[in-house]
């Protein structure tokens, strides 16, 4: 069954790339910005939405080029994903329709902290991975959740001074126990906001697509200021969904962990190809 699922995934990938090429001459691809230039900031519009992502260049762990979101993913875009608002506006594309989306959350998942421009939160890693797939399908580029090594590489280049963390981060010390709109704290050396604090950021450590494994990096609004650094990680804990009153519990949403969020990276296609090859090798071991 697992093998079948993997095959289906490959077919889906082929379908997506074929679809992108087919649309190149006449489709919405014309509206896409040019491919990013190494070392330069570029703004990624998300077709069919009013949203765009500002992507900042950063060196990857092996010295190559990648881009990272300047800000944490907000509800503005995550709502479009979970409520299929792109389909309702008839701006959907077959590519993005093919991506499985999460069920609607049962609770007020934003916890009343705030909505527009506030970080999306409380999503499971599986949910975050689907979101990255959806953004990739929408844009025709490879967006994904970083690995821990990639996140630490970004963090090192962000170079947040240890004695000025409060200027850069919403933590237990200054958050009033809630998240805040993204981008309100000082930008770091890379031009990123909220790398520390506000919501922790999913990084993938392994597992399968069905049962992915990951940790949170960067800490959240409930983290003590002293715990915010490039090294600390918060492993997934079943208690994050302890009080979900349904059974089976949601595989998409956490009833208890409101400090879980997303910041995507983008790698260029050649790099992505290399990564995929690595994954295949890994699968065969």
């Amino acid at each position, binding site marked *: 069954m697992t093998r079948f699922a993997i095959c289906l995934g490959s077919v889906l990938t082929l379908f997506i790339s074929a679809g992108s090429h087919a649309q190149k001459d006449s489709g919405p691809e014309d509206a896409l910005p040019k491919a990013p230039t190494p070392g330069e900031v570029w703004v990624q519009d998300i077709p069919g939405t009013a949203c765009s992502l500002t992507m900042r260049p950063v060196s990857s762990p092996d010295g190559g080029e990648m881009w990272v979101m300047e800000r944490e993913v907000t509800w503005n875009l995550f709502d479009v994903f979970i409520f299929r608002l792109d389909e309702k506006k008839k701006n959907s594309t077959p590519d993005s329709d093919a991506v499985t989306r999460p069920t609607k959350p049962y609770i007020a998942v934003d916890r*009343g902290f705030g909505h527009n421009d506030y970080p999306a939160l409380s999503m499971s890693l599986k949910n975050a991975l689907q979101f990255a797939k959806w953004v990739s399908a929408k844009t025709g580029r490879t967006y994904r959740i970083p690995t821990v090594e990639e996140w630490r590489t970004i963090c090192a280049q962000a170079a947040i001074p240890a004695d000025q963390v409060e200027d850069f981060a919403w933590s237990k010390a200054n958050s009033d126990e809630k998240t805040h709109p993204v981008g309100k704290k000082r930008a770091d050396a890379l031009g990123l906001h909220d790398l520390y604090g506000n919501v922790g950021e999913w990084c993938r450590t392994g597992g399968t697509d069905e049962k992915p494994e990951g940790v949170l990096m960067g800490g959240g609004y409930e983290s003590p200021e002293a715990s915010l650094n490039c090294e600390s990680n918060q492993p997934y804990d079943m208690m994050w969904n302890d009080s979900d009153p349904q059974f089976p519990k949601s595989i998409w949403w956490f009833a208890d962990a409101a400090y879980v969020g997303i910041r995507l990276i983008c790698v260029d296609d050649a790099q992505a190809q290399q990564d995929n090859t690595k994954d295949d090798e890994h699968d065969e071991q």
Partner: protein
Amino acid sequence: MTNNDHEASPDSITRRRFIATTSLGAALPLATPALGGISPFARDEIRVGVIGCGGRGTGAAMNALQASPDIRIHAMGDVFADRMTSSRDHLRGQVERFGDRASVPDANCFAGWDAFQDVLATDCDYVILATPPGFRPQHFEAAIAAGKHVFMEKPVAVDPVGIRKVMAAAKSADEQKLSVVAGTQRRHEQCYLDMIERIRSGAIGTPIAARCYWNQSGLWSIDAQADRSDMENQLRNWLYHTWLSGDHIVEQHVHNMDVVNWVYDAHPTEVYGVGGRQARTDPKYGHIFDHFSLEYSYPDNRFAHSMCRQMEGTPGRVEERITGTEGHTRSHSGMTEIMGPNAWKFSGKQTNPYVQEHMDLQASIRGERERLNEGQRIAESTMTAIMGREAAYTGQLITWDDAMASTLDLSPMVYEFSERSVHDVAIPGQTELNRTV
């Protein structure tokens, strides 16, 4: 099966009288463990029947198992065989955690319209009532008549006729010394209990005004299928039919109204307000509204504003705010605080309230604490939500007495899988409280 029939069964007598006798010892809660350290049910596990095997019914069964090691899920029933079997199999899958205590034998698994009667006819001690709320009055009445203790999910009715049925059954539960707990889990959540204690001791002076909210995005829906009857399609998509869910104001917002009634230690006297169906208009969402905003009057010139909304892409807010003559409170699941001269914020530990409510019910059944009967209270809180819905549906001011005397009965004439039209969307100024449907 009548209560007398049940008492005639020797096995039942033993079990039931044992419980009743134990209940008499409620004034001496500490005496029970002193009996050789064995509580009555340590020799005889508490058997649970589940009526309504959806995600919440299955979740409540898990919570009951988590609450104590002497709990066994004994029987289960659902109108739909597929819901019952999936729930049964999920529970059987918990063998590592609960051994065979979560494994219901096939002989005690029931499907169909009468499945609730089949569950009640088994030798279970308490039942979890977790079907869509439209069935609750009928099921609660039958459970109490069968002499069972009850955990029932909120809300407990969708119309005044159902409310009166629940109130009568709650009274009968008292006469039989049965324990009843409702799924308004804030009543069992430590942060709320601590806040209420402080309010009672004057921390915010006299509470005079309240605001409560359940604003969130949309919920799941199940698309109608051509090979299913109208009745089945409505049951599976129950949130969007008032005769099944009570509308979202009753189905969800009852939690927050219950807190306001708790703080005021009263139910409202009248309600006035607005509501409508504006953003969520697709026929797959039945006929319910997507927003309500209401003003409730309480005795002694106290009042409450209630607001609830299910609209995608809007900010959420699920909480209660109380204003007193000397301070304010703010509360939501997991967080309560007091602002003003007696400022305080809950910082203690608390157990999962969905488990705690079963711990409290089980302690009540064992006679280890004062017996709990939350039937009348949850009926009043549910009625608070129903009268608010009716104020918005009709556009009229609705008094508590109007609501309590209302003949509104939303239940179908017959329960069968057949054609069934969707009720009209209510139109303020035209829809009447005592309408026939």
